[in-house]
């Protein structure tokens, strides 16, 4: 099967793409490699809608920095992958442009919010998918689709051209079937960029290092039995290869989910203020109204349900009278959690947990979840994201034909450790692909 046919199948069978190349001739030319970008990364030649109706028709006249760097390295951008609206979700079910379907079972979700990216990485041989994580949006879909997903340290990859969700949390990363792609492409997309000041703080990328000891926080094992079994067997495999495994207490992690949702929605509610029907995407042509009526009409009709919920939560958390209780307290909790990780890293190379607490859920199960339940499902992926720590989800087992992932977290700027761990793990772990895939 040609790469173009694989892309068509990932699109038609699994809704992996929000938009993609339509011309098979593009593949007659010899190209270095093909890649996709999550739909919140701007790229010339494609719309950038970030899963939201409010950005319908927005065609950016520039490439996001990581897209630009991959193109310059010989990469062919084949499409924009489907995602939760602005990244607001853990199952990629809040996109305005179709819901991506799990490569292993079309009745189940891909995870979110980089769900299309994970499906593309799983279904298309030799494909590199750029994802973006704010609170776990690379790890979660990587686990549910059975691929490797690397989220670098906050600031490692320039966010120029990224449609913001949470400015102090967003990170661009990589998803692939091949652990070796992490070593090849992380250096390509990393590095300082004067157009994103947060990228200027980074030390030089060091791809050396390895993981010979891991700490497992005790609270991380409140997961379903199938996930627990797969994780226990992965720990056994690590032990037998000489990795020291120990349980530790990390009591501050219980503050991570509330602190994350307060900070992420506070930042999202200000970032989304720019979508007012005048500057990007959908425009209102009723110029005979007051500005506020004009803005409210566009926003109310174009934002999806979860976007509205998060704008409300974030606006509330920042309001006078509530700011100290929520926003300021969440900033403090973040520092507390960072210090706790740092103290564990004194004795261990990485912190290891399952990635998600259950198997990829079915769509009918997701529709019954209350918002709080779905937020709480992120309790393992949120802590490293809140802390800006690099982390990696690796496939670690299967149950009932569905993939299960584990997540390793390393100190700030030590992505090299995680890449080495992925390579070592991939030489021992037999990756399974969905039946229809080759």
């Amino acid at each position, binding site marked *: 099967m040609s790469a173009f046919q694989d892309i068509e199948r990932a699109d038609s069978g699994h809704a992996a793409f929000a938009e993609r190349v339509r011309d098979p001739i593009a593949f007659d030319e010899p190209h270095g490699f093909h890649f996709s970008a999550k739909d919140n990364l701007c790229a*010339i030649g494609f719309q950038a809608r970030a899963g939201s109706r409010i950005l319908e028709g927005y*065609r950016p*006249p*520039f490439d996001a920095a990581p897209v630009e760097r991959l193109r310059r390295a010989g990469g062919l951008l084949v499409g924009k992958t489907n995602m939760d609206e602005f990244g607001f979700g853990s199952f990629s079910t809040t996109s305005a442009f179709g819901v991506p379907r799990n490569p292993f079972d079309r009745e189940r979700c891909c995870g979110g919010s980089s769900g299309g990216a994970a499906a593309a990485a799983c279904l298309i041989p030799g494909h590199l998918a750029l994802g973006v994580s704010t609170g776990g949006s690379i790890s979660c879909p990587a686990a549910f689709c059975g691929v490797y997903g690397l989220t670098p*340290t*906050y*600031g490692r990859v320039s966010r120029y051209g990224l449609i913001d969700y949470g400015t*102090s*949390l967003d990170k661009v990363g990589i998803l692939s079937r091949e652990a070796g792609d992490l070593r090849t492409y992380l250096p390509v997309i990393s590095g300082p960029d*004067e157009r994103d*000041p*947060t990228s*200027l*703080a980074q030390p030089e990328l060091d791809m050396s290092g390895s993981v010979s000891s891991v700490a497992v926080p005790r609270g991380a094992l409140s997961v379903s039995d199938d996930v627990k079994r797969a994780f226990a067997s992965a720990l056994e495999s690590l032990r037998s290869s000489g990795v020291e495994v120990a349980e530790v207490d990390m009591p501050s992690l*219980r*503050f991570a989910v*509330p*602190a994350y*949702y*307060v900070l992420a929605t506070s930042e999202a509610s200000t970032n989304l*203020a720019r979508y*007012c029907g005048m500057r990007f995407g959908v425009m209102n042509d009723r*110029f*005979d109204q007051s500005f*506020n009526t004009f*803005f*409210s*009409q566009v*926003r*109310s009709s174009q*934002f999806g349900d979860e976007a*509205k*919920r998060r*704008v*409300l*939560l974030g*606006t*509330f958390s920042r*309001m006078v009278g509530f700011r100290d*209780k*929520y926003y*300021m*307290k*969440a*900033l*403090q*909790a*973040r*520092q*507390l959690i*960072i*210090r706790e990780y740092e103290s564990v890293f004194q004795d261990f190379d990485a912190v290891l947990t399952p990635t998600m607490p259950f198997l990829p859920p079915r769509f009918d199960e997701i529709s019954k979840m*209350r*918002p*709080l339940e779905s*937020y709480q499902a992120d309790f393992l992926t949120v802590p490293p994201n*809140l*802390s*800006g*720590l690099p982390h990696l989800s690796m496939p670690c087992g299967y149950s009932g034909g569905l993939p299960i992932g584990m997540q390793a977290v390393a100190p700030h700027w030590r992505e090299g450790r995680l890449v080495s761990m992925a390579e070592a793990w991939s030489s021992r772990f037999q990756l399974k692909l969905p039946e229809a895939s080759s």
Partner: protein
Amino acid sequence: MDESTVARVAKVSRLDLTEDELRRYSADLQEILEAFAVLDEAPGADGLGLDPVPVEDQLRDDVPRPWGDASVLRDLMRAQDDGRVRGPRVQ
């Protein structure tokens, strides 16, 4: 988080909510905030860094220079005339 609070927040957020949305968001946000009350138990921490890693402002010289490819930008404009962008008529 009662409905009147949600209505007040919605107004500030420039969102017009239907009665049904008001009811639903009020119930959802009430449940979420009750669960988030656990933050009250978090001990104080040094510093309130806005970024998870230290980030210093680095300013560059304010020197004009060409941006990107102007023809890409122009081609994306809805209305253009002879290489120039046409703006909407002022009413």
